[in-house]
């Protein structure tokens, strides 16, 4: 049995604040466990509102912050915050992020293709320009369109696609997407969400899709967990959970989602 791609075991993250008198401890993530299998690519959705701990969870999976307790294992190896550079690069080659704000994901003063070339030089072999072009084509763009452009010259949807292309260059096994479409226009959102399905089916990349939007999660996810106040309240196969939520919070969440069908 192959080790799972990603395995979280009773992971918690506690933040302390306050001075000498009266420290406050906030459990941003509390005892979360799940695993993403290695035998087939899947889209694993983490649903939660603000304050649910989903972003902290994402940062722990990406090895940006360490968990306070519990272990996170990628392909059987525990993540370690104090890794040497080579181990860190190795990890980054296999796990890449997509961030929430496409306008902030790139330095506004620099050209966007620079990041693509840099990632290609560091993590991939062959001609960096060619690798960049290949990755861009996979997301529906091309190097010619993007070459020497600054972030402000492109739309949110385009920028997010470029961010996805950059994440694909190293041929990662896992992509962690933290609210990737919440800051993208409504009409461009579905094209990016559909792209995730494509990446899973065509390239075999597993995606952890973190969002508060139940509807898009319904469309593309295979499995899902719903988080509240740092804890997992419900988990299971995506369609099953969202069609028929059991936990009161999940039911509340589903009931609060507005639908345009209300009138139609």
């Amino acid at each position: 049995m192959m080790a799972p791609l990603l395995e979280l075991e009773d992971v918690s993250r506690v933040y302390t604040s306050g001075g000498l008198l009266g420290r406050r401890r906030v459990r941003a993530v509390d005892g979360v466990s799940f695993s993403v299998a290695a035998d087939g690519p899947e889209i694993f959705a983490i649903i939660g509102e603000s304050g649910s701990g989903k972003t902290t969870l994402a940062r722990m999976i990406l090895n940006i912050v360490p968990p306070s307790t519990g272990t996170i294992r990628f392909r059987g190896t525990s993540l370690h915050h104090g890794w040497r550079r080579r181990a860190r690069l190795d990890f980054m080659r296999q796990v890449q992020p997509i961030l929430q704000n496409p306008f902030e994901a790139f330095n506004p003063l620099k050209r966007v293709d620079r990041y693509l070339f840099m990632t290609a030089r560091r993590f991939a072999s062959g001609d960096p320009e060619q690798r960049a072009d290949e990755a861009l084509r996979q997301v529906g763009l091309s190097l010619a369109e993007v070459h020497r452009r600054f972030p402000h010259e492109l739309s949110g949807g385009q920028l997010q696609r470029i961010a996805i292309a950059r994440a694909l260059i190293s041929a990662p096994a896992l992509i962690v997407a933290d609210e990737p479409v919440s800051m993208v226009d409504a009409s461009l959102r579905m094209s990016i969400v559909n792209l995730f399905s494509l990446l899973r089916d065509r390239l075999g990349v597993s995606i952890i899709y973190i969002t508060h939007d139940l509807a898009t999660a319904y469309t593309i996810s295979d499995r899902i967990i719903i988080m509240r106040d740092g804890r997992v309240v419900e988990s299971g196969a995506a369609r099953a959970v969202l069609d028929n939520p059991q936990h009161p919070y999940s039911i509340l969440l589903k009931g609060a989602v507005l639908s345009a069908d209300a009138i139609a």
Partner: protein
Amino acid sequence: MARVLRDLLRSNREFGIGIALLAVVVAMAAASALSPYPPNDTYVVPPDIPLSWAYPLGTTSRGQDVFWLLTFAIRNSLAFGVLVALLSRCLSLLIGLTAGYAGGMVDRALMAINDTFIVIPLFPILVLFYFVMRDRMSWVLLALVMAGLGWAYDARLIRSVALGLRTREFTETAIFSGMTARQILLQEHLPYVLPIVFSTTMNNINWSIGLEVTLSVLGFTDINTPTIGVMIYWANQHTALVAGIWWWIAFPVVLVVMTFIGLFLLAVSMNEYIDPRSRLSRFGA
């Protein structure tokens, strides 16, 4: 670069005036190479002669031509100011960027050192330095000491910009693109830090020339090398104003004020140009 200068000259009046003033000052400094009299020689021309065709800026009571003396003076003062500014910029950048990016204990340690240096009273230390070094006093040594004491304030400014930049999302993108910390600091963060560095450089030059003039006027430096302050020192020694030799003091003062104003205008106008926000609005973001 040339296009940038042309844009600025065309659209910004402050830049134009600043450049004009500095051009005069730098021309004066460069003219020192053409001086017929060595800088330290005295009584090479008749003393106390007012402005005339032979001596356009008059002569001093020590028998030196004010014009040619001034070229050396401004050259030395400028060189001193620039040297101090460059050295202290390097220190500020190094410490500020490192502290801001590394965070944690490194940041705390560096800032503890930083704050100690901010609090050190500069003037008494420099005077003390003079009394200790006395005959072995040299300009380079003084520049080193001033640079070593003048970096702290700006390091904190740079650190605060670096702190903010570290939490921005493009830093994370850069990390996951495989950039090393040094690459990130130099390529991603430096453009944001440059406006501060630039304007503080101008301020620093003004500050160091100002301090040099103060020390020299009081006689706490090497008074044998002509600088603006030293000129004024000697003028005071010979009670020039009382004796009516006003040109000995007036022209150094005018020239150094021109330098200050020129540098200031340059800093202000270039700052607006370099500032990332105004750059973005020029692009049309």
